[in-house]
């Protein structure tokens, strides 16, 4: 194990309780991610990929094991501390875009800056990100006027605008056709190469997975292999 990594996971367990039933979503995951890495994560449905992201991203606490993200130990975090982690340290991108439907693309991005308390500080990163998006002219449209690919690029911009240490993308191309998928994947690649953005991406698509420097295979709540 390399403790210098930006993400260090060891023997991570996650148990969901639904009524009396216990679901073992993660059964001992060990993972180490270096700064600036682009990691693809693949595996069958129900293998615990999303659960791993939710824990690394501070959406849910781990049941057992050690998780450290950018120097923060997640196992001992309170809810408020996890909120802070989501605000400052991680950016999420989801399969379903998850833009706020009543706000324009620009405002969707601005909301993230507002929540992080950055809205009044001019940030060259904001301009750079908007440029990278390649949809500058459509920024004043609401999500339902944008194509899926455009929406997902806006969601990515929103996720990285506060300079998170890591970007977690859960099947970002799952709802996109191949052309739009490629635009999104290129954007992730650019972010990784130009800004050194650490990216973790879950995907079911082998072509998409190939964008990663490494591919992590998950099965039954464990990491089966690296390729």
């Amino acid at each position: 194990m390399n403790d210098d990594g930006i993400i260090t996971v060891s023997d991570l367990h996650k148990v969901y309780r639904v009524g009396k039933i216990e679901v073992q979503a993660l059964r001992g995951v060990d993972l180490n991610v270096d700064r600036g890495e682009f990691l693809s994560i693949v595996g069958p449905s129900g293998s615990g990929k999303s659960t791993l992201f939710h824990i690394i991203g501070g959406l849910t606490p781990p049941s057992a094991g050690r998780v450290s993200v950018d120097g923060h130990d997640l196992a001992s975090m309170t809810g408020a501390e996890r909120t802070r982690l989501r605000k400052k340290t991680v950016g999420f991108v989801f399969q379903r875009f998850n833009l706020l439907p009543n706000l324009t693309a620009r405002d969707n991005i601005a909301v993230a800056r507002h929540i992080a308390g950055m809205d009044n500080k001019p940030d060259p990163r904001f301009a750079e990100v908007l440029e990278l998006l390649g949809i500058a002219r459509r920024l004043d449209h609401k999500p339902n006027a944008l194509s899926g690919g455009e929406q997902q690029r806006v969601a990515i911009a929103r996720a990285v605008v506060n300079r998170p240490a890591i970007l977690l993308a859960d099947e970002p191309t799952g709802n996109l056709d191949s052309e739009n998928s490629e635009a999104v994947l290129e954007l992730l690649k650019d972010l990784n190469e130009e800004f050194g953005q650490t990216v973790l991406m879950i995907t079911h698509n082998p072509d998409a997975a190939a964008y990663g420097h490494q591919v992590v295979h998950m099965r039954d709540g464990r990491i089966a292999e690296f390729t």
Partner: protein
Amino acid sequence: MRSLLSFLLIGVPVTLILTLVGLTHGMIEDFQERQRGTGADIVVRGTNAASAITFSGSTLPEGFTGFLGKQPHVEYAAGVFTHPIELPLTVTGIDLNQFAKMSGGFNYTEGGPFQGSRDMIIDRYYAAQRHVHAGESIQVMNQSWRISGVIDGGKLSHIFVPIRELQKLDSSTGKLSQVFLKLDDPKNTSTVIKDLKQKLGPDYPILSMEELTSMVNVNNIAGLKEFTWVVVGIGVVIGFAVVCLSMYMAVLQRTREIGILKSLGGSDQFILGIVLLESLLLGVGGTVLGILMSFGAKWLIRTFVPASIQMAIVAEWWPIALAITLASAALGALYPGLSAARHDPIDALAYE
């Protein structure tokens, strides 16, 4: 849609409060204005004059008018006889010449003075309420009266008839309800009252116009304050319930959005703040709509019952109504706001 409905539901109790307040102010101001419209400085009333509004029970002998008119500093005395009809309306019997002298004369918009004993003079508000014009006949007190004239308002009563006729109908021949006195100089009011009290004894209430008008105000109408607070309380409960339901619905509808905000690092307080802010906006919108609707209520009253009911627009109550609504909106936001803040972000994001 949800917001509009909420505005309406919050607006209704606001209108209710403002209308109630407007009615009490309007009725009181109208009463005071009409009393002052007599031009009198002093009012002498019969002993049984039960309340300030309804001068029923007339125990002033008619001879008093002459007697009072001869007192020092008294320029005119005019005796009137009043008969209440549908509250708060009264028919007032007058000696037209005597009353006109005191009040500065009637300003006729239609027709003119009494010509026969069954003639009636009404003001334009009552004319509008009854849809009648000079020359036409109306039924009042189960009697038919010919409208000899329509006057501008503000002169003691909305309805005047010859005093003899009214006394006869009331089987009170020779009696008066009250006598109005006009002095040579209003400065002499207290002197004259003192003098009259000595001469008439304690049986006859003698009031200056100022005393009479100040007797009728929001604070000394029995139960009015309490009633106002009950209506305010109802407003608070309705506002609370509407905001609570409306925002709870909004929170359910926006479960995903709440999840998104949480995934972006929005704290519980941030989410609670959003719900609270929107609730307060609902409260502001509802108050504005309620104020607009109170103008509507005033218009309805103006149009349909201008003589019986007067409603004032009491702008001093707008901030009070706003404060009441905002307080109930903030209370109403609490439960939905806390439940939104406690949403689990993963469940919220998975919500369809």
